[in-house]
């Protein structure tokens, strides 16, 4: 049987074989790690589903393959030596080749589709469009016809960027054609054509885009193109935050417990503010705004391979030390590329902190389909006015990027005001 490239995350389109854990001829048992796959986000171990012998490696280490494409072959226990024609278990979402049209043999008594009609009985001539298709990226439901889903898959179009004109807002072929007026006959290249050709000289080094970099490029370009961003900046008095951190850490160290960082306090304050402002804890669906009842804060983490966003689930209900411990663990996994897809999906708002690099302030691109992202700058000392006299004060500047489709300026400003209140009085966020 063929070993197929597994689908390991929502955004994965192809994977790279990082390492084979078995050699050709090795005996493999169900549950053994067969191969390690590098996806757009992580390194994932892929286990064998069955007992057998690895007979062929089709994609060597470092090679890449589309989801569902065979990367190796194994002979399953009981299968004959030449077992080439074993049926391949279809991997979810894979369509490497043209499926055959079902054909009924001419012989009389051979029902060829034994039980296809198990779906809901729809009364006569019922209006269409009541069946929910699979969820789109991050759970936002995209209504699109199967034809559109296939064409979008083949041409690399993100359906989340289209508006449907069919019944119930369904995306139909005509919408896709309007969005991509490319020649219909020739299959579109997988990559979006680069807007500007880059002249390359012999002094330049060319690094092909890895799948992770490609995903980052696509998602963030989509975000900037489709979400109308506006930015709200506010500078807060960070003195109390620094003081709280110092006092807590002194006690934590004495109790032999791990320390907390300024970023942990910011994450906690953001979570509390989001609980009070559900409009910021929302996502833009094509024909609806989805308000999330749980607060899952994503934290942007820079890794050598690129940006990843692990998620602190239910961050508003966690203690500060719990957040600190989880954030440290997730950041460590992110740098080692050991995050599971579950640990990287489902965030409802994201925090990006470049303070540790000395950046005073910056603006961040929204992690779609969330309504906003907070860019956190460094805590800095500067002259300020305290009680009518100039004194040295500690300040921090935060910038909120907001998707104007979901949230308006005043709402964003109120959220930011509440957040500033929490940052300047951090014990309110902590207790």
């Amino acid at each position, binding site marked *: 049987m063929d070993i197929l490239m597994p689908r390991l995350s929502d955004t994965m389109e192809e994977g790279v074989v990082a390492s084979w854990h078995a050699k050709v001829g090795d005996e493999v048992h169900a549950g053994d790690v067969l191969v390690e796959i590098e996806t757009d986000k992580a390194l994932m171990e892929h286990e064998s589903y069955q007992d057998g012998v690895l007979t062929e490696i089709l994609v060597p280490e470092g090679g890449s393959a589309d989801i569902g494409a065979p990367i190796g072959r194994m002979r399953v226990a009981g299968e004959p030596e030449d077992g080439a024609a074993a049926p391949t278990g279809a991997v979810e979402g894979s369509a490497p080749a043209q*499926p055959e049209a079902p054909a009924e043999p*001419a012989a009389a008594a051979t029902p060829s589709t034994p039980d296809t009609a198990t779906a809901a009985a729809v009364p006569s*001539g019922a209006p269409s469009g009541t069946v929910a298709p699979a969820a789109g990226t991050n759970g936002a439901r995209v209504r699109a016809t199967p034809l559109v889903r296939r064409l979008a898959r083949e041409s690399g179009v993100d359906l989340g960027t289209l508006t449907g004109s069919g019944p119930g807002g369904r995306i*139909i072929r005509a919408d896709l054609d309007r969005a991509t007026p490319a020649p219909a006959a020739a299959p579109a290249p997988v990559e979006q054509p680069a807007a500007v050709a880059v002249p390359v000289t012999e002094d330049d080094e060319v690094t092909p885009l890895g799948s992770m970099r490609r995903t980052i490029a696509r998602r963030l370009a989509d975000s900037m193109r489709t979400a109308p961003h506006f930015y709200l900046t506010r500078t807060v008095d960070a003195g109390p935050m620094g003081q709280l951190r110092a006092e807590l850490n002194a006690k934590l160290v004495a109790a032999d417990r791990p320390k907390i960082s300024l970023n942990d306090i910011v994450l906690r304050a953001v979570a509390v503010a989001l609980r009070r402002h559900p409009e910021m804890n929302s996502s833009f669906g094509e024909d609806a705004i989805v308000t999330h009842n749980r607060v899952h804060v994503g934290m942007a983490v820079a890794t050598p391979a690129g940006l990843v966003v692990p998620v602190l689930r239910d961050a508003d209900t966690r203690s500060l030390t719990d957040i600190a411990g989880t954030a440290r663990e997730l950041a460590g996994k992110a740098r080692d590329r050991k995050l599971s897809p579950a640990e990287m999906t489902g965030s409802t708002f994201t925090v990006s902190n470049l303070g540790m690099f000395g950046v005073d302030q910056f603006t961040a691109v929204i992690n779609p389909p969330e309504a906003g992202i907070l860019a956190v700058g460094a805590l800095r000392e500067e002259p300020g006015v305290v009680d009518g006299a100039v004194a040295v004060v500690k300040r921090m500047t935060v910038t909120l990027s907001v998707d104007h489709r979901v949230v308006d300026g005043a709402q964003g400003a109120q959220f930011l005001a509440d957040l500033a209140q929490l940052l300047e009085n951090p014990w309110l966020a902590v207790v």
Partner: protein
Amino acid sequence: MSAPTTARPAAAGTTTMSYRQALHDTLRNELLRDENVLLMGEEIGRFEGSYKITAGLLDEFGPKRVKDTPIAEEGFTGAAVGAAMLGLRPVVEVMTINFSLLALDQIINHAAKIYGMFGGQAKVPLVIRTPGGGGQQLAATHSQNVELFYAFTPGLKVVAPSNPADAKGLLLAAIADDDPVLFLENLALYNTKGEVPNDDTPIEIGRAAISRPGTDITLIGYSRTARMALEAADRLAAKGFDAEVVDLRSLRPLDRRTVVESVRKTSCAVVVEDDWLTYGIGAEVAASISDGAFDWLDAPVRRVAMAEVPLPYAKSLETAALPAVDDIVVAAEQTLRATGRG
């Protein structure tokens, strides 16, 4: 037709004739060709058949080959099953498909199963011709299309020609077939005319026909509804839509491949049946489309069928209950609109 002066030129070309005439001529030619072929049924001899399909055949072939039977559908159908098992090739006429319900046990329990139940030791080369369909003001028990019961049953073949040429080609194939074949006619089709090939080439059972090629939408029908679909396609053409019509011709085996390939081309479909909607042949076709052309569909498959009532006698109510060309056109337009093309 008179005997040809030379064999070849006469075999080529076509002749215009009615569906009724095509059936009559084919039966006569088969009686001439093979002495094992015999006809059985109520009033097919002296009365020449309720629909005059067998006109003149008793006189020409005598009572051994053209048998009038008593009003006893289960009895004479069972006798035909036995005759077929012993090597004859009986063609039974059941006056209407409604009366075939009285012979269900012989057809479903015996004709369909004997080959398999006895390990292939006996074949049942039996043809059961029977007309169905509403629209004749014959009321609820005489106006049905219960072909679903037979298409549902493995071991039977079920064909339903929509035009004189297919009536000839499929009847030749049915008589030549070693399995029992339900040969469905439709009262509304008997007087329709068309070009019929002069040669005796059978039409393979299990092959649908593209009776009108098109690119915008697939209309699928069989028997009378295939003809209605062609009319609907003409009406759609006048509105600028290029509909493709698939005539199933055979309900078992069902030519899923032709259906699926057509829908892959057009991305949407309307299935038309002259019968109740629920659990019907249209449902089977729609499921096949979903199975084989899911990734090509740009709108849900729609079905047009008759109202789910016992068919009324009153003409106005009967007309209202039966599917009409208008209904197909409306369903097609709604489907095209759902794809943004309508």
